């Protein structure tokens, strides 16, 4: 993501935006994990 953003923004801004993006994703994972049972259903074959 940093590589993508740094094409359009200076490195300090790309670092900050990448950090915010990762923090949002990690928050979404924790939020979704709290909301339901975590399960991967298709892995045994």
């Amino acid at each position: 993501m940093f590589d993508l953003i740094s094409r359009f923004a200076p490195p300090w801004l790309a670092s900050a935006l990448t950090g915010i993006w990762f923090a949002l994703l990690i928050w979404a994972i924790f939020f979704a994990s709290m909301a339901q049972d975590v399960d991967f259903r298709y892995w045994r074959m």
Partner: protein
Amino acid sequence: VILKGTTDIAFLSWMVASVAAYWATPARLRTETVILTTAIFLALADPISLGVFVTMTAVVFVACRSGNATIIGATVTIIATLFAFKAIDPNRGVLGDGNHIIPLGLSFFTLRCVHVLIERYLQTIQPPNPRQLVGYLFFLPTIIAGPVHRYPAFISQDKPSLDWSRVSNGLERILYGYVKIIVVSNYLLSSQLFPKLKPNFVESSAGFQYLDCLDFGLNLYFQFSGYSDIAIGFALLLNKKVMENFDLPLLRTNLVDFWRSWHMSSTSWFREYVFTTVYAFSRRRSLSTIATMLAIGLWHGLTLNFIAWGLYHGIGIVASQLWGAMVFRGQRLNGTASFLLGLAGWFVTFNYVIVGFAWTKERNIASALRVFRILLRGVGLSDV
């Protein structure tokens, strides 16, 4: 049960412990460390799986140092072992009795073993030494559900030094994998979207059955591609680059491109070893395509449903190729016509794939056919 799924805390802990153990070990012993963590993981998660894998590895090792007849015998034995386990699995075989579940990762392990045997038969690889072979086959990131990475590419990338760009890319891929599985599939699709949409239709309506196929297909895609992201990221943390598995398959505009971008590591395996072999003997493209898709169906499960699913896609690919040859005839279309044909191609391909999941999500052929009858009635083909 130590392992509920790839997203549970046990697997995450194993991932962290394996990476820590890998980098804490001197460079010359890192392959052995991965082998050991993989073996311990299998021993705890599924001891039968460990026993089967050790036996298969021994068979491959001995065969690779013997003549072609032994290699052929070993290949047949390994494929027969997979089919025997599939046959008695309640979800994957015709003889399933509810008591025997296929060993963890066996389908993928089989493809890797057969790959090594065939490449040795073709003499494109040297007889593997035990460290290389076991290191390739007992690689924790890919052992559960792929990708089906290849031996020559795997053993040629022994870099002892820490590559921070790989670590960074690996962590990012793992994060995206968890987002796909936990946020998109488990939460947005399974807990929010489909539980709200489905109750608006009765079970025997085309709307419900279409949503059920969509539910299954989208979940399968996000879970499986999410798992692949985790496996690829995990491999990067162990300093290995393995094959990609998905490349936006649900956006493809024809069935051939769909299968080139869906579960790529296994479909390329079948293309290299099944399609090429059948085509070499028959010289008939359509027959080779259908045989390949039938083999893919059988690899997924030894049931009539998986056979029907394989044939469904084989026939679909042949029809797609005939349509392409008939319409385009080697000509290039202009912008608007190309865009509209692409859009129509995507619509047909997406729905063909999604509806095709009725073969695999239903428990038997009669039930799958019922779904198709309801869907056809929904689009006005009531007499079919």
